[in-house]
Each structure stands twice: as structure tokens, then as C-alpha cells.
């Protein structure tokens, strides 16, 4: 296969994957040797080195991957950080609210209320010591029960768990 065309296909494959892709797998799909693939990579490197590209190709072990160049990180941060932050804090707030008023509660119950995966939000709340693992529910799988900590009650100026009401 023509070098130019192979470069484009390698770019497309790495772009679609998001994760590193094995060089031999790429070679296989392109009907090329690994050396030929690496020759394409060299050419792509030259291409991406230009200012007009914000991405770069790198070899990790026996795989290839595309990433953004470190120098454009400030712009990535500027455009995505506020969004990620507000999403995350909204998720954490919602999750904490559910645990507060429905404790003790399992992850799957929380997720059935929120309708989205809540793993990350739970981890954040655990890290901040606002919730703790109170025990396990005696059903198949014995899922963890989450409840709010003393710290959390303190924080919101509540005397005890009985003060929590949603009138």
C-alpha cells in the first residue's frame, strides 16, 4: 500500500480507538510489515510536528497512540474545565442529597434514582469523608450501604441523623 494512504488509515484507526493500538494489529490490517508501519509513523511525526497540528503520535511499548500536544493544554483547560467542574459538582451534590435523605442506600439504588453511573461521585464523597460505608445489604451480591458521616452532619449543622427531614 502507498505510504500516504497508509498514514491516513493509521491516523483514522488511532483516532477512533482512543486507546493505544498494537503496531502488529495495524500492520495486519494494512497488509504491511511492522517496519513499514513505523515508517508511516515517522512521516506522521514530521507532519504533526507542524504548528498547525495540536495532536501528536507516540509509541508506548509495542503500541501507538494519538494524544494532544502538551503545549495546547492551557486551551483545553480553559474550554473544558469549567464544564467538567460544574458537571462533577452537580453529580456529587445530587448523590450526597440522595444519600442524606435515603440513607443507608446502595449504589444501584442511587443510580436508579439519578439514572446515571454514580461511581465517580461516590468516590469523591468518600474521599472528602462526607459519606462512609455503613455495612452491606443482606441481599445477593451484598451491596455496600452508604450513609453520611458525623463530619457531614457537623458540616451542615445537624445534630443527628433524625434531624434530616425533607418536610
Amino acid at each position, binding site marked *: 500500500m502507498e505510504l500516504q494512504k497508509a498514514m491516513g488509515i493509521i491516523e483514522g484507526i488511532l483516532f*477512533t480507538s482512543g486507546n493505544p493500538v498494537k503496531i502488529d494489529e495495524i500492520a495486519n490490517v494494512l497488509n504491511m510489515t511492522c517496519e513499514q508501519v513505523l515508517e508511516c509513523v515517522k512521516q506522521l511525526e514530521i507532519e504533526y510536528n507542524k504548528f498547525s497540528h495540536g495532536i501528536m503520535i507516540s509509541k508506548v511499548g509495542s503500541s501507538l497512540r494519538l494524544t494532544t500536544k502538551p503545549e495546547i493544554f492551557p486551551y483545553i483547560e480553559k474550554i473544558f*474545565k469549567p464544564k467538567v467542574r460544574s458537571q462533577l459538582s452537580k453529580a456529587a451534590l445530587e448523590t450526597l442529597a440522595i444519600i*442524606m435523605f435515603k440513607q*443507608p*442506600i446502595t449504589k444501584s439504588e442511587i443510580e436508579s434514582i*439519578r439514572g446515571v453511573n454514580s461511581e465517580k461521585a461516590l468516590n469523591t464523597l468518600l474521599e472528602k469523608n462526607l459519606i462512609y460505608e455503613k455495612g452491606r445489604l443482606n441481599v445477593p451480591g451484598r451491596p455496600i*450501604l452508604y450513609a453520611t458521616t458525623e463530619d457531614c452532619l457537623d458540616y451542615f449543622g445537624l445534630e443527628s441523623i433524625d434531624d434530616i427531614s425533607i418536610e
Partner: protein
Amino acid sequence: MALNIKINTFEGPFDLLFHLIEKNQIDIYDIPIADLTEQYLDYIHKITENQLDLASEFLVMAATLLSIKSKMLLPSKPKQEVASELAVAEDNDVDPRSELMHKLLEYKKFKEISILLRKKEEEQEFIFKRPPEDLSLMWADEIPLSEITFEDLKLAFKSVMSKKKPEEKVSKITKDPIPLSRKVMEIYRTLKQKSKIFFSKLYDKKTSKLEIITTFLAVLELVKMKRINAFQEKQFGEIVLTYREV
């Protein structure tokens, strides 16, 4: 059987009419209404013969077609003494088929657009996006929870509980309206406070049957967990629950 499948694929009466129009190469601007009605009714009969569910819209259209057909059969100058001459003249000027024609033309337009959309949809199947980078890990430790008040929590709770969640399975709601775990905690807390209570005091007249069952299951759970004791003097008698000191 082939017929069943075919009938089933009609989206509605317009879709079926359209099929007939195309099949017979009918001019939409001059619909042979008697023919079309006959063929339409024929299809309807076939559907019902095969005992397939027939949407009521198909019957409404059948009635419409019959009504147009009968209007077309009426002499063009009916009794003039009934209404003013002008009104009757106006009425007669309108082709009884015109409303149907306009509706069919409009439906045709969107049917064609939907075919174009299908083509675009298929084109998109050949291109791929990149999975979004998980940026949340990068800034996860910077979540500002410090500015939240208890009121914020209440609001967040109310809003999340009232949100419509189409992806939630209906069966789940009916099966388990109150999580058993919550009931277990409720009863445990009540008993810890009062140390003794009748089972019947754990619900009232308004409590649903399902919730009473959940309550009972929660009691069994607590007995199993050795957190409470349960006694019943006689069959169908009151169940007395007592808190068990650990």
C-alpha cells in the same frame, strides 16, 4: 404470511394510501376515488382477516374515503332552496377530494424527506467519532463542595426525585417502591427509640399493600440480623417487636 408482514409495515392510513397510489400509478391530482376506496377497503379486510391489530386511524380513513365517494356520486346541483344559492355554489366548487389530495401531498413531502434522512443516517454509519477524553479525573479533586448549604441539598434532592427518567424500568418501580434497606433502617430506628412496638403500628390505613409486605420483610430481616425479637401470642394475633440489646 408475506402479506401480514407487508401490511404491518404501513405506518398509517396515508402510508397505505400512498402505497396504493404508487402501485396503481394514480395521479394524486385526480384520484379515482371509487377505485382507491375499494382497494383500500380490500386491504383493511385482509388485515382484519389475519386478525392483526388494526389502528383506529385506518378505519377513520375508510370512513373518509366512503364519504368522499358518496359526495362524488351526488348530483352537482342539489336542492337549491335549502341554502342560499351563493353558499351552495361555493360548496359545489370544491372538489370533495381536495382535502385528501392536500393531505396526501403534504405527507408525500415528509415521506420523501424521511428517505433523504435515512440516506444521511446511513452515511454517518461509515464515520467515527473519537471517544471523549475523560477529563473529570484531571480536576476531580477541585470540586467546590464547601459552598453548599443544607438547603442546597434539599433542593437537589427534590429536583432529582422529580426528574423524569425514561430509561428507568417501570417494573423496578412497582417491584420495590421503598427499598427494603430503608425500611429495615426505619424499623430499627423506631425500635431503638421505643424498645417495643406492635407490628400493626408500623403502618396505617393509607399504607399500600406492597409497603406492608416490605415492612414485614424488613422485620424478618431484622430478626435474622438478631437486632430485634418478634413474638406472636396466637395465630393472627398481634406481632410484638422488641429491641434486642447487643
